[in-house]
């Protein structure tokens, strides 16, 4: 193995420190070293969004970042979305409205929705579709995802 480096960061509110191969992608380190496999890999080219996480308050596709670039940052993964063991309003709305089938695309859909709702409390259908346009879902046809996000907005209002 190439010389490893130490990566220090905060993940889902917890300080973590791991030894990593500096060539590794953030998504790989999150899944394997940090043992948070809820962040998925669909393409590794930034097209599907299954690898989405939040870094320092901004959503990113973690297949497009080297893990080393996350030094000192605060990361939230899908495992960190629930609040004190309770599903967030957004997660609950996705459950109630059948906002996923296989669930593989959920990291991208949930984080894009969270990001949208933080900026726009009552988005239109167009705005919702625009917000999740960077994520691919092959199962739902997007309808129930759009409804889930609209429902989460309504419940928060």
């Amino acid at each position, binding site marked *: 193995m190439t010389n490893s480096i130490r990566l220090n960061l905060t993940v889902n509110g917890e300080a973590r420190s791991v030894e990593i191969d500096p060539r590794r992608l953030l998504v790989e380190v999150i899944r394997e070293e940090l043992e948070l496999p809820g962040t998925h890999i669909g393409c590794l080219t930034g097209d599907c969004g299954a690898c989405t996480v939040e870094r320092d308050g901004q959503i990113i596709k973690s297949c497009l970042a080297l893990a080393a670039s996350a030094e000192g940052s605060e990361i939230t993964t899908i495992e960190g979305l629930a609040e004190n063991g309770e599903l967030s309003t957004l997660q609950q709305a996705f459950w109630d409205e059948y906002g996923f089938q*296989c669930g593989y695309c959920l990291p991208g859909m949930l984080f894009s929705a969270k990001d949208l709702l933080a900026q726009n409390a009552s988005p239109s259908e167009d705005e919702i579709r625009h917000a999740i346009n960077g994520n691919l879902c092959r199962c739902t046809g997007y309808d129930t995802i759009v409804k889930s996000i609209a429902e989460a907005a309504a419940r928060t209002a």
Partner: protein
Amino acid sequence: MLASTELQEGRAIAATEAPAGGYVGARETKHNGDLFLTGRAAYFNDIVLPKMSHAAVLRSPHAHARIKSIDASAAEASAGVLATLTGAQIKEHTGPIPFFIDPAVFGGKTRDNFPLAVDKVLMTGQPVAAVVAETAADAEAALDLIKVDYDVLEPILEADDALKDGAPIINDGWDDNVVITLPFVEGDAEAALAEADHVIEDTFEMHRLSTQPIEPRGNMAVWEKDGSLTFYGSIQNPHPLRLHLSQALGVSESAIRVIAPFVGGGLGLKMHGHPEEALVCVLAKIVGRPVKWLEDRRETLLIGGIEQTHRFKVGFNNDGQIVAIHNRIVANVGMLGSAPGWGMAFLSALGFPSGYKVPVTDVSVQVVSTNKGIWNATRGYGKQGTNVVIERMVDLVARHLGMDRIEVRRKNMIEKDEFPYATNSGLNIDSGDYHAALDKLEELLDYEGLKREQAKLREEGRYLGIGITFELTPESADIPGTIVGGFDSAQVKMDPSGNVTILSGVTTPGSGNDTGLAQIVADEVGVTIDRISVIQGDTDTCPYGFGNYSGRSIVSGGNSAVLAARDIGEKIRGGAALLLEAGDEDIELIDNLARVAGAPDRAIPIAAVAETIYTLNFAIPGIPEPPLESTRVYKPDNIRHTPDEKGRIQPYPTYSYAMHGVVVEVDPETGAVDIKRIGIVHDCGTMINPLFIEGQMAGAMVMGLGNGMSEELKYDEKGTPLSTRFKAYLMPRAGDVPAVELVHQITPSPFTLLGTKGAGEAGVGGGMSVIANAVDDALAPLGVTIRELPVSPPNVLKAIDEAGSNGGRG
């Protein structure tokens, strides 16, 4: 884009038909949804085994070549590498990969597919060598060090070229490039066409596409200390795969355990017969450690489907009656792989004339092998070939006669009192009311209003198009002599605490049939759904089943769960009757209670009855026998494998159907198609869970629209794939489609226990056909006829150009 009020109106019509009471028919949410929402659902790549190693596959850069030699010595010595394997060595370790559906069963040609090419490669991307290393990165790096000396041959990429006299034959030992030709003939088409008032002769081409679930494939094998093999994979059919691994590897079926964890979308791609399944088993044996292989998206995109050309004649009379269809289909299945993909071509021909009463049909399909990539199943399994082309025919007839397309459909569709209806190809369509579905679609879309709007916009030089199509979806197939089975099994067990476990032979690729099974069993046994768990996808624990395909999970798996649950319910009723001093027939099971009908205070918890049966069985004479376990199989009716006088069989129990309508606007300058509305009327018989059915339909429709609008697997002239990433293989995104307005119509199947007809595939063929017809309609004023899919901007512009050079005749 639709306003959400319109969306809700569409849904409101649906809600009025939902049955009341119980779990079956309710809009129940996923029973284990929290697992997925919190990132705890384990998919294939989340499984990590101690001492796990990683495989990478070297693939041919040539579409057609002989392998002269392979030197893997440098790779073998590379950092972290545990072993290498080449095609020259593969036969020492495994036999050929058994076909999921062998063309030889139907009298066609076959071939030996080994996990690594032995002497010749037939497609770009065919595996030629493999490396196992400590990390996936080490394995991939070592691939670069393998030297392969190829004798490159001229590739044959197009089916028509492969069919030419004197064309090089790509499979050693074959006498031409045709896998099989399958004719379906009823009556004398030449004569009927000669007598018809009109005949249209035309062609239609469906280009190569691919399924592309967001989770790619992956396999892992580990040989246990006792010599048995455990296989993990993102797969759809665990028991059939166990059989095939046993046949390939020469290991007893009982010494193999196949486990399918949660699957991130199957869509047909994860039916097996791929090289990497047996390959990881061989590699794991060689290195004596678990070996994992995970597919890269470039590899997923090597697998195609559907590519076919129809050259047809349709004869019809002045009144719009279609009297004869003559259709020659040529399907380009690329390299003939062992996965079930090639069989889709069979279905594209078998399905004619769909739900229309065409007295004379002469349809045949020629399945041609070329140097493009293999096919695997793609959701819809070839039925989209029938749907697209017959619906194009109907629109061509309407346009030729100046009749409304809806009227032509009304005139030719099977009437509701004609079911069960035997089709020309020997199918026996169970039930339906196509005319009522068409009426509902007209109302949903306000068809007359749309036509007025279209006329107005045309005056302004805007090109609004309305597409209307019917889609027939035969479901739950059983193909004799193959592991495509029409029945399935379920085991239902109640423990002494009154909890219920369902073990099922069907698997869920993400669709939620597991929740459907729980709903069905909850009603039969009288417990609340939170007391039920569902186990699928493990050959050591689940009863024998065929897994997931052909919309079969609820038809076969659901109905077998009903039978098994009824056995348990009967014992609980018997026990409760004894304890409550009532008759068995007076006991009702509901809300975790066994109670005497009409006497609400005479009740006992079901858990108490279960505990009594397990713990006081010797003490209470007459109490039902333990265990509270039952395994049952359900075989739907209507399947007939004894050939009729014409040699035809009837492989499908049920036929779901749908009417589709979309509204598009096409920009003739750019060729861009903007979908404005999607309306669907769908009948899949009894619905176990309308929420899931609607989700399946919306997903299938959008997949079909993508298949028909933007998705295309392209190759260069050397046979090198060009659509290698999601940046070039364009699947629909949320902003590309509006909401789906869906109306249910329910005509239960008389041939299945619960009346279900299967869901999940319907919509794919509908999406493809309806987008073809809508774009055709939009551009009719320019004289355009749509003759190929996808209607991507370049293809639309080409169609406009062709119309222009035809003087606008189309």
